[in-house]
């Protein structure tokens, strides 16, 4: 090798090494999430650009599938290998479970400096903190006890949004009689359970819901009220169309959007579908609380859990946590996502009518202590129990077992999963 060549080789090697080192020093966050669809990704992009303006690179780690199931598996592999991602999107009890494993970061400093304790509802904080330490930044609050209805269908049939169970059944009957599908639904376990949430709440009230699905009291689970709940679930099934099994939730929303169905019982991420189709709340579609659950909010909250990372990555991680909780981001993200901010001090200006109603409901429920986690979305009971209840609810909903049998199985399932 000639001297010149050697010199050049060494030179480029030196540059290469220097670049590698400087690249390692550049601030970087690795974020694991499952927000892969257009709307969600656009919402998350707001955060990415915010961080990039602060000089922090965003390493995206999307793993779609199963509403986060695959992502949780990948997370496990990463934690087992000793290299957790900087932040992970997570829901409910999973957050506390990971906190218990002792692999998460302590955010108390940032929380104190930014005053998080004062602006995040207590019911949410229950999931953002472990052992008194902040470990996650909540992004939003979704609530699940909503009904989304096609206004044209309601107007044509002279139906007003029902306020109790009997009115609800009467409305469904009317829609069914007119030849349309009364309730659009997707037959997947979590969707069945979403309906279950609301039916439990409307049948037994707030205290019953709490005793049964949060405290997991066996007597309550085996009570006659619970049997009524299952009977009502069967009743609802009578208003579905025959092809509901396995249908994705957004296709059920599409049925309501197109006027093929009257109502959908779904959380407020459904609003995104209606907005995407160019519909306006109050004009084309209606949003109202599940009849009988007014004044209560069953919620689930997406939070980013910050994992314990090396010292060089900590500053970037703190910036990420702060950016998530910033009011501007909270407003921008939630307007797109269909949920409401996790901070109670964000103005509702930018939100549409359903969003404004959601924020008002949240404040009211939080104030009256009627804000409670949704079972179907992992905020009432841990994963093992939640899935065990899924099994019973979905088996019953699909007609495999009777209501009495379902009550018995529910008691056994909850006991066996603890």
């Amino acid at each position, binding site marked *: 090798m000639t001297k010149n060549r050697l010199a050049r080789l060494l030179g480029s090697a030196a540059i290469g090494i220097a670049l590698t080192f400087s690249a390692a020093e550049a601030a970087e966050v690795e974020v694991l999430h499952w927000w892969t669809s257009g709307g969600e990704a656009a919402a998350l992009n707001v955060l990415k650009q915010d961080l990039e303006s602060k000089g922090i690179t965003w390493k995206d780690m999307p793993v779609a599938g199963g509403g986060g199931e695959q992502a949780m598996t990948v997370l496990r592999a990463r934690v087992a290998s000793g290299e957790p991602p900087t932040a992970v999107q997570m829901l409910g009890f999973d957050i506390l479970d990971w906190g218990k494993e002792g692999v998460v970061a302590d955010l108390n400093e940032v929380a104190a400096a930014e005053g998080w304790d004062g602006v995040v509802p207590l019911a949410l904080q229950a999931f953002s903190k472990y052992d008194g330490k902040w470990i996650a930044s909540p992004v939003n609050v979704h609530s699940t006890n909503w009904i989304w209805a096609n206004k044209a269908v309601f107007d044509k049939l002279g139906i007003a949004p029902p306020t109790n169970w009997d009115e609800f059944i009467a409305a469904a009957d009317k829609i069914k009689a007119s030849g349309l599908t009364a309730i659009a639904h997707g037959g*997947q376990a979590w969707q069945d359970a979403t309906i279950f949430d609301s039916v439990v709440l409307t049948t037994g009230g707030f205290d019953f819901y709490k005793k049964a699905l949060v405290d997991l009291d066996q007597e309550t689970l085996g009570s006659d009220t619970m049997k009524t709940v299952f009977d009502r679930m069967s009743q609802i099934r009578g208003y579905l169309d025959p092809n509901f099994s*396995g249908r994705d939730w957004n296709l059920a929303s599409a049925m309501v959007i197109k006027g093929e169905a009257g109502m959908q019982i779904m959380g407020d991420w459904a609003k995104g579908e209606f907005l995407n189709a160019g519909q306006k709340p109050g004009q084309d579609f209606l949003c109202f609380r599940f009849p009988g659950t007014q004044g209560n909010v069953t919620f689930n909250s997406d939070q980013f859990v910050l994992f314990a990372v090396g010292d060089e990555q900590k500053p970037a991680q703190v910036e990420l946590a702060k950016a998530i909780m910033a009011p501007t981001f909270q407003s921008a993200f939630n307007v797109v996502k269909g949920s409401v901010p996790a901070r109670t001090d964000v103005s509702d200006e930018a939100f549409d009518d359903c969003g404004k109603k959601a924020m008002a409901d949240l404040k009211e429920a939080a104030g009256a202590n009627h804000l409670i986690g949704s079972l179907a979305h992992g905020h009432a009971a*841990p*994963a093992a129990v939640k899935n065990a209840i899924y099994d019973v609810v*979905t088996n019953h909903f699909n007609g495999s077992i009777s209501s009495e049998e379902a009550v018995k199985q529910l008691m056994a399932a909850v006991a066996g999963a603890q």
Partner: protein
Amino acid sequence: MTTATTIDSTIGWLQRQLPKLVLAPSFAVVLLFVYGFILWTIYLSFTESKMMPNYGFTGLSAYARLWAQPNWYVALQNLGIFGTLYIGICIGLGLLLAILLDQRIRIEGLLRPIYLYPMALSFIVTGTAWQWFLNPGLGLEKTMHEWGWTSFTFDWLINSDKAIYTIVIAAVWQSSGFVMAIFLAGLRGIDSELIRAAQIDGASSFAIYRRIVIPMLRPVFLSAFIVLAHMAIKSYDLVIALTGGGPGRATEVPATFMYSYTFTRNQMGVGAASAVIMLMTIAAVIVPYLYSELRERRHEQ
């Protein structure tokens, strides 16, 4: 001994050990990544691991929980149904296609890749395509309606009792071509002298196939059985892509059960117990085959 002879004998020893040294890394890798991990899983099945491994020994509690889950029985039953149908139909169909193709077909070169290509597709692709195909609102049923056959129903996919059979259909589609290929290879390896002798004796084609050809394919049957059995037990991707385990949990199989309990329900102990049962089932099938296989060789030699 002089240094020269010591070096010589060392080199000689190395040379004799060379084959084993070449084999050693592979064997070591297998020992660790297969047997080491199996032992790890067996150990975990005796703990109450929840989210991450917890190494406190708790005896058979995880197994007790496992057998108390109704889902587990559904999973085992489904494995039985799926496994039997999948293996049976694949072998039957593969053999039939191989025999047909062996009849000096002019377009064999065209047909063979057509039967074989499904094997090339990943389960996500297969599951997506078949899910669409079998969806009553979007797929075959709708097409039949549009073509005028309005009373046609094919709602197996969303029917709790019948959904498992849709998985059989998709899986057979995926693998029968491969079975056909190995039967075809086997058929072509049969000594034509035997066939000719039988023909001279006046045996009909059917009798020839039944009495001579098929019995001679015994080793191929066994190979096909092994490959198919292993795919049946491992079939996680296909079930998830096609039905997601549903409707409800009607198409749960041990592989999805194990995944669900380990990763989604944070009950790693129960998941490990189910994995051990799965491995025992696999061993029960594979070990006798391997034993008979390798024993026969000794006789041949």
